[in-house]
């Protein structure tokens, strides 16, 4: 029996496809998320909207909080480490979390290097804004890629930009001939082996999920139709007027993303979505973190 292989890391990412992963800050919220049909929860001390509002250095969560959430639910529990902070990731692995998110939502710990994710048995998800960034993270061992979007804004525009960029470049690489793939590798600043692989298969070697700005069931349906394979919802659930109903509605809309009648049904009378931030009010772009 062999644990920690790339097959089992990627395998869990595959099992989460078509589902919704929700940010939760305590055990009570984790139970609400599980009750609504979340496939996993992301345990953290503050949702991105509050990190943005409060400022200061954002770090890995207290192990006590993560353990409380692990005990409260039966679904997978993820947690965030700072970019490049492999010691935080080691602690999360020691806690037995199911996935580590090396996340730009926390304050980066290393301005040049991401974590060497091959050194871990726990799988990692990393954010990306374009195909080159996605392939660099995969070459470092990431078993799942998510769009960065712009966390904590409730504005889907950045996630759409990132998904269109990643998927559009994938389609373009698929049209390239063998010689042009070397040029693509140079342009993407990514290993040529990975570029050749995506050219042959037409998809990333790991699942592509969407994160950063999903606030409504229609947002989820939009990104799933664009080609995301599952969605992360951060502030969008617990900053809404009725979190339990919003959570359930986003789960339904993600599963039935091509069925507008169904999305309409679950969207009716949901109450207020998170208020959100737009344009200059966003302040520092978290998506610019990561290299």
């Amino acid at each position, binding site marked *: *029996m*062999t*644990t*920690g*292989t790339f*097959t*089992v890391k990627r*395998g*869990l990412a*595959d*099992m*989460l*496809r*078509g*589902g919704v992963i929700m940010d939760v800050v305590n055990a009570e919220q984790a139970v609400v998320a*599980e009750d609504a*049909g*979340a*496939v*996993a929860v992301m345990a953290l001390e503050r949702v991105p909207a509050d990190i943005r509002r409060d400022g200061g250095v954002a770090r890995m969560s207290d192990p006590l909080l993560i353990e409380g959430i692990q005990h409260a639910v*039966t*679904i*997978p529990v993820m947690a965030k480490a700072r970019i490049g902070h492999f010691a935080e990731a080691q602690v999360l*692995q020691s806690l*037995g979390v*199911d*996935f580590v998110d090396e996340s730009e939502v926390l304050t980066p710990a290393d301005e040049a290097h991401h974590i060497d994710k091959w050194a871990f*048995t*726990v*799988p990692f998800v990393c954010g990306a804004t374009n195909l080159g960034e996605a392939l660099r993270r995969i070459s470092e061992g990431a078993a799942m890629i998510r769009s960065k979007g712009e966390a904590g804004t409730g504005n889907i525009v950045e996630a759409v930009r990132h998904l269109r960029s990643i998927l559009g470049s994938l389609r373009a690489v698929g049209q390239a001939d063998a010689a042009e793939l070397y040029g693509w590798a140079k342009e993407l600043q990514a290993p040529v082996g990975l570029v050749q692989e995506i050219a042959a298969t037409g998809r990333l070697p790991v699942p592509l999920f969407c994160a950063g700005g999903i606030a409504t069931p229609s947002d989820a349906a939009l990104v799933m139709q664009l080609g995301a394979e599952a969605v992360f919802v951060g502030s969008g659930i617990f900053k809404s007027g009725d979190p339990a109903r919003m959570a359930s509605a986003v*789960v*339904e809309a993600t*599963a*039935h993303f091509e*069925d507008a009648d169904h999305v309409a049904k679950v969207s009716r009378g949901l109450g207020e979505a998170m208020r959100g931030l737009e344009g200059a009010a966003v302040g520092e772009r978290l998506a610019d973190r990561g290299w």
Partner: protein
Amino acid sequence: MVAGSVGRPLVGVLALQGDVREHVAALADVGCRSRLVKRVGDLAGVDGLVLPGGESTTLSMLLESTGLFDAVAGLLGDGLPVLGTCAGLVLLASEVLDGRPDQRCFGALAAVVRRNGYGRQQQSFEAEVGLGVGFGDGFGDGPADLPAALPAVFIRAPVIVSVGDEVDVLASLEGVPVLVRQGPVLASAFHPELTADRRVHGLFAGMCGAGAGAGAG
């Protein structure tokens, strides 16, 4: 069955959440057509059904909200062939330990399973599983007396704690059943759709009425 589809069964793949695409590809490899099942109408005319890997609590809720739970339960009661892998096994079991209290299962398989019984993700593993005496009818492509072990991927997998007398154990790992069959019900704790070995899907294709020779490729 309409002309032209003889020997190529139409298998529904529950497509509410989970690793649906891998099952569709595996079914194509063993000569089956497939149809994604997201609502009750999608079940019309299927010769078999696959319950994929995913999160069983999520699948259980979405089965309820779509009305698919009762529709599938009815078809399973009528003897529709079904393949459940991992979460699909949990859904087919007669009793689930360590699940959610409101988690529903079809009870089509006389088995008690413990959800995530092998542990959390860091205990997820790959292994070669030995094929038991029950493999005979379905796994005939190995040497007659000693079929090759089956490569298997276990992801936060359920443990089959016990099975009824009516259940055949087709494969086991360290004495614990991991692939079982009860008449038209085939279920595994691991994910045959994640490996290139097609013997489990091949067996299921036969249960769904795939014609002799149709499984080639």
